[in-house]
């Protein structure tokens, strides 16, 4: 404290050289030893209050239509957890902050959670650039960061030990697991249309490799600039010999995209296979989407209740989140959920619970123990906690793997025609986070 006082009384007769000296001294001081008051300020007190979970939500920006449903799913799961007695006897509290679907704000929000809200962990991010922008801060502030992003960033080894994705399969395995079925049922000559985003490039690279392994070939790759509003002019690039058109779009242009696709081909079209990302939060009954009848989609979790007995926990999950059998909000049938992805929030929250219980989590001091506990998990059985299905977790890569669905548009609804096995989606680990220091 004396240090500060000298500084402020000096102000009046300060020269430039003095400033530089002080700056230098301060820098040296800071470098040499950890400043006592500072490290004190960044530490956190333990508490017997609720376990606080920072929810990094896309309330505004391009992720907002996903963010809304991520929030609803999270709140539903949190409610259930609390109704069942919370975690380690403590209730959980979801603290939500909007990240604007922006990586800069995302990093700021992580700081806010860690320091101001003093949450125990951060959770719930979807968009990859927000995850990657926030991850370094989570690592530096040593706060566990559970993402629900389906990006390959976690398993690629680019992030750090504090980042985990235990609730949703990553894009690499999703894409890989589609190739065998696509190759043997739809065709071998594939044209891909994807956004010129890293996410689109992942689809391009992983699918190209996977379909080649099936004896197929990607004959044309059409990367659409993300600023595009209209897609029609790109369709002539689709080669005539195309047997399968593989599309994955994201963002608000998706509706235009699929409408124009239908317009372009009419009835004489190749097989069309897409990722439901192209239609998340979009009503299949929308005018112009009739042309999708008979086409196929990947779905993480089938939007329409299948009633085929394959998934006994879907109905329970649906009811708790407030979604009807068509994947729409119970209160507004035109409000379509992001059903294929949002289950990840639910399942992640339960894994956090499981991890905290295994680690006997008491407070921020046990954060490393929590991560180690989650890393030690190997599989999650299907159940109310994991309604989408059973999963295998790889503690080294911090990534989970689950079954995937292929659905066909039949009478304006998505009907599952194939379920992959978990084994279809596994690949060689690219990283071992457990060897990194905390």
């Amino acid at each position: 404290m004396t240090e500060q006082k000298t500084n402020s009384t000096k102000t009046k007769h300060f020269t430039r050289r003095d400033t530089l000296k002080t700056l230098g001294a301060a820098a040296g001081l800071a470098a040499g030893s950890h400043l006592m008051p500072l490290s004190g300020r960044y530490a956190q007190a333990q508490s017997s209050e609720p376990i606080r979970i920072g929810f990094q939500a896309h309330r505004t920006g391009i992720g907002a239509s996903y963010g809304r449903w991520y929030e609803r799913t999270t709140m539903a799961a949190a409610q259930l957890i609390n109704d069942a007695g919370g975690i380690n006897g403590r209730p959980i509290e979801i603290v939500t902050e909007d990240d604007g679907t922006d990586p800069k704000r995302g990093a700021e929000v992580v700081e806010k959670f860690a320091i101001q809200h003093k949450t125990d962990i951060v959770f719930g991010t979807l968009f990859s650039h927000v995850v990657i922008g926030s991850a370094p801060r989570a690592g530096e502030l040593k706060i566990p960061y559970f993402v629900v992003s389906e990006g390959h960033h976690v398993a690629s080894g680019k992030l750090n030990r504090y980042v985990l994705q235990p609730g949703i399969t990553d894009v690499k395995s999703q894409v890989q697991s589609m190739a065998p079925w696509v190759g043997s049922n739809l065709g071998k000559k594939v044209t891909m249309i994807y956004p010129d985003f890293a996410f689109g490039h992942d689809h391009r690279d992983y699918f190209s490799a996977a379909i080649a392994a099936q004896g197929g070939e990607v004959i044309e790759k059409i990367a659409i600039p993300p600023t595009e509003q209209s897609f029609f002019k790109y369709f002539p690039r689709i080669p005539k010999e195309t047997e399968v058109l593989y599309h994955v779009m994201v963002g608000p242009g998706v509706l235009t995209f699929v409408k124009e696709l239908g317009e372009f081909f009419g009835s004489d079209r190749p097989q069309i296979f897409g990722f439901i990302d192209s239609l998340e939060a979009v009503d299949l009954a929308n005018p112009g989407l009739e042309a999708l009848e008979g086409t196929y989609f990947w779905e993480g979790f089938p939007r329409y209740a299948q009633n085929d007995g394959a998934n006994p926990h879907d109905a329970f999950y649906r009811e708790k989140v407030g979604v009807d059998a068509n994947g729409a909000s119970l209160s507004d049938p035109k409000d379509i959920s992001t059903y294929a992805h949002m289950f990840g929030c639910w399942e992640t929250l339960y894994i956090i619970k499981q991890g905290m219980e295994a680690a006997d989590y008491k407070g921020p001091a046990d954060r490393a123990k929590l991560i180690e506990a989650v890393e030690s998990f190997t599989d999650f059985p299907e159940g109310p906690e994991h309604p989408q299905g059973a999963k295998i977790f790889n503690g080294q890569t911090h990534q989970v793997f689950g079954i995937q669905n292929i659905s066909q548009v039949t009478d304006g609804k998505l009907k599952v025609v194939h379920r992959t096995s978990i084994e279809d989606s596994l690949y060689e680990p690219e990283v071992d986070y457990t060897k990194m220091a905390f």
Partner: protein
Amino acid sequence: MKLRNSIRQGHFDSMDFGPYLLLATLEGAVQAAVLALTALGLSLVFGVMRVVNVAHGEFFMLGAVLAWWISSLLTGTPLFGFLAALIFAPLIVGGLAAVADRLILKRLKYDPEATIVATIGLLYIIQQGALTLYGPDARPVAAPFDFRVSFPWFGYSGYKISVILTCMVMLLGVWALLTRTRIGLIMRATQYDRETAQAFGIPVARVYTGVFAFGAMLAAVAAVLIVPTQQAYYLMGLDPLLLSFIVVIIGGLGSLKGTVLAAVVIGLSDGIITIFFDPTLAKILSTILVAMILVFRPTGLFGTATR
């Protein structure tokens, strides 16, 4: 390297050059038509009031969102809902713009810099309003009619072709309004010299409010026309704003003919360059092309100085 690979002669095997050009031209024409109408609104506001209206794209967005709202309120045929939207959405948007003019711009005495800030503020307010009241989802509006025009090589939306024609009629209408009527004369007089116009008894304040509302209405009309082929979305205003700015500058300030021509140039070049290059590279090249036109013809292709 990547650049060379992407100059593609190879893929005309997918569609012959002729039909591809036809398709690119049609797409370019739709974009040009809607852009011309939107940009004209910006150009009028810019020309008469010297206001750079950064919220112009939000008026476009509001037009689209209101079109969804109005047509979803009305049951009956899509045609009925659409016509109602075509009438009422622009009126509501125009009304809002008039209020914004009276409450904000007028008090700023139309100072060019201050109005930029104020319209950025307006942009946020409108955008947030749409997000809160309308939601983050993209929503469709049914086309009033639709049929697929089957060319031998590909199918095309009949509605899109009608959009081109409708925009042309609208543009002619605005041209007649500006050159053949007393309203147009008053606007031009105000544009030419505000003080003199005032001295001649022209109610300049009311003209400004009217022009600002009219400019916003043009954007809203354009949005209502195009929204059945796209979707209404709360962040959709940015692109039309940027493109309109480019069109207005390239076309030359206050030149109706220039604005339309520039919209055609930009719409078509955007469509046609995509035949030859990777899509993103095509966007890069067309953007550089237009920027270079501005750099070496700073006053625009067809107009006089734009300060």
